[in-house]
């Protein structure tokens, strides 16, 4: 069983001339460890070890993280349902804390130390510190988090009909996320915390470039600038789904030096390198449904194509699924990512 600082350093040295592999896996780790998916969310210790064991099994350099995409709803006082059936992948919102315009003006910032999922996430991060793993605070972006606080369809209506209400709520949510980040920096120290930010609701399958410019971009920029300013080490920004129209804006947002920017299969890696290659490590973007439903050969070929493009990235490349690794993906298909890295991932 590989754990500990020495082992991690050894692996880093071995992989220095090599494309890295990241699995972006949560539910899949539960399968590897023989747990129901809910353990990844209701038991930080089991969640931590399941992720460590999965990394060991696939020999990949990951960064274990406690990830609840719907956490903002929970933090602001909504109700969350943990996954409890074979078809559920992650916690989901059962009751949104904000259901009307009046609720927005009544809403107060939650306690950034005790609200919702925060105690679970802190326990997880302390395990990371204790076992010499990178400490990563994982959140969703201000716009996506706000969609979890008031429901995405309500937020979509407000950005056209009541933009002032939308701005008020997104601003409040941004302040909450920054307070949580400050709590992590206060606990673990300046330069010891990474921030992972997911941005699924910003997808151009949902909002336009113009709407992104007004309701997402300024808040992500504020979040990143202030987080880096308070001592966050680097940011892993997962630009989820079809976001080609938004890329010029993301390129103006600081990610740390270097940050990591990961993409879904909808963004071509050559495009990603053009926008971010000089300042960020690029990560992505094997289509998750191919990993889940394709043949091993299809996964291997797709991974090879990603590596061949990604290797051109000046600051480095991490082969990853384009979004969370499907929990039910065949383990041998997942191994095809590793095999492709071994076969094609060496730098000259």
């Amino acid at each position, binding site marked *: 069983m590989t754990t500990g600082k020495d082992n991690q350093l050894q692996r880093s040295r071995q992989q220095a001339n090599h494309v890295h592999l990241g699995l972006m896996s949560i539910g899949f780790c539960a399968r590897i460890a023989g747990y129901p998916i809910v353990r990844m969310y209701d038991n930080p210790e089991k969640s931590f070890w399941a992720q460590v064991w999965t990394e060991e099994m696939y020999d990949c350099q990951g960064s274990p993280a406690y990830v609840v995409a719907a956490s903002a709803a929970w933090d602001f006082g909504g109700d969350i349902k943990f996954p409890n059936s074979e078809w559920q992948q992650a916690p989901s919102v059962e009751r949104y804390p904000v259901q009307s315009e009046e609720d927005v003006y009544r809403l107060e910032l939650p306690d950034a130390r005790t609200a919702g999922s925060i105690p679970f996430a802190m326990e997880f991060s302390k395990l990371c510190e204790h076992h010499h793993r990178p400490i990563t605070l994982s959140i969703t972006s201000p716009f996506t988090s706000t969609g979890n606080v008031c429901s995405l369809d309500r937020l*979509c209506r407000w950005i*056209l009909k009541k933009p002032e209400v939308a701005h008020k709520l997104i601003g409040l949510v941004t302040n909450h996320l920054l307070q949580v980040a400050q709590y992590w920096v206060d606990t673990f120290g300046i330069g010891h915390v990474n921030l992972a930010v997911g941005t699924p609701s910003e997808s151009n399958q949902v909002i*336009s470039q113009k709407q992104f410019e007004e309701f997402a971009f300024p808040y992500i920029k504020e979040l990143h600038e202030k987080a880096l300013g308070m001592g966050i080490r680097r940011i892993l920004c997962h630009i989820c789904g079809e976001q080609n129209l938004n890329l010029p804006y993301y390129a103006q947002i600081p990610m740390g030096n270097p940050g990591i920017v990961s993409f879904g299969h909808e963004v071509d890696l050559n495009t990603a390198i053009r926008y971010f290659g000089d300042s960020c490590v690029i990560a992505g973007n094997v289509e998750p449904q191919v990993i889940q439903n394709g043949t091993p050969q299809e996964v291997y070929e797709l991974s090879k194509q990603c590596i061949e493009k990604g290797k051109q990235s000046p600051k480095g490349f991490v082969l990853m699924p384009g979004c969370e690794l499907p*929990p039910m993906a065949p383990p041998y298909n997942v191994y095809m990512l590793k095999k492709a890295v071994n076969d094609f991932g060496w730098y000259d």
Partner: protein
Amino acid sequence: MTSIERTRELLKGLSDGVVAFDEEAVAKLSRDVLEEGIDAQNAIMNGLAIGMEKVAELYVKKEYFVPELLLCADALYAGLDILKPYTKVEEQDVKLRIVIGTVEGDIHDIGKNLVKIMFEAAGWIVYDLGYDVKLERFVEEQLNTKSDIVAISAMMSTSMLAIPKVIEMVKTKDSNAAIMVGGAPMTRNTAELYGADGYADNAGLAVREALSVIARLRSATQK
């Protein structure tokens, strides 16, 4: 008797009101339609529905996005709420029917709702099962309604695995059922792999795909 010009003016106003997501204008024009004795079904199909067709085109062309679609739908329903009670019952009998829902384990329903709106606007009778729908509910509803299409949505890579199971369950009980699927993780290839008859990449394409599936299956049956 309302003149042809006035009727056209009202129908165009309804269509334009939906496209401009002007709920108040659509509601007022719908009341005008009734007051002026224009057939409610005509106003729905040649006013509101035409507007929603244009909205679907704008969405496919990426000129409209989900926020615009939702507000256009609000305008559509403002009109439908006023006009629908005045449509004749026999007109309901000849309509196409669809059972729709987001599959068990999945609470994402914006996409499903947008698809539902497109079918309602196109004059279909929609049996909306909601979200996190138990698999057997699709079967029961299809057996009860004998709908022309069963539409199943999933947004997660785990919940999408329920789709082939639902398809098998529905087809076992009703071999003629036509099944469409959609949702972010789905692709046409996956839809075929899972045994679906149709797939729409987005809400704007869903009605066209459904009509194509029905035509294809009916043609195959006649052969």
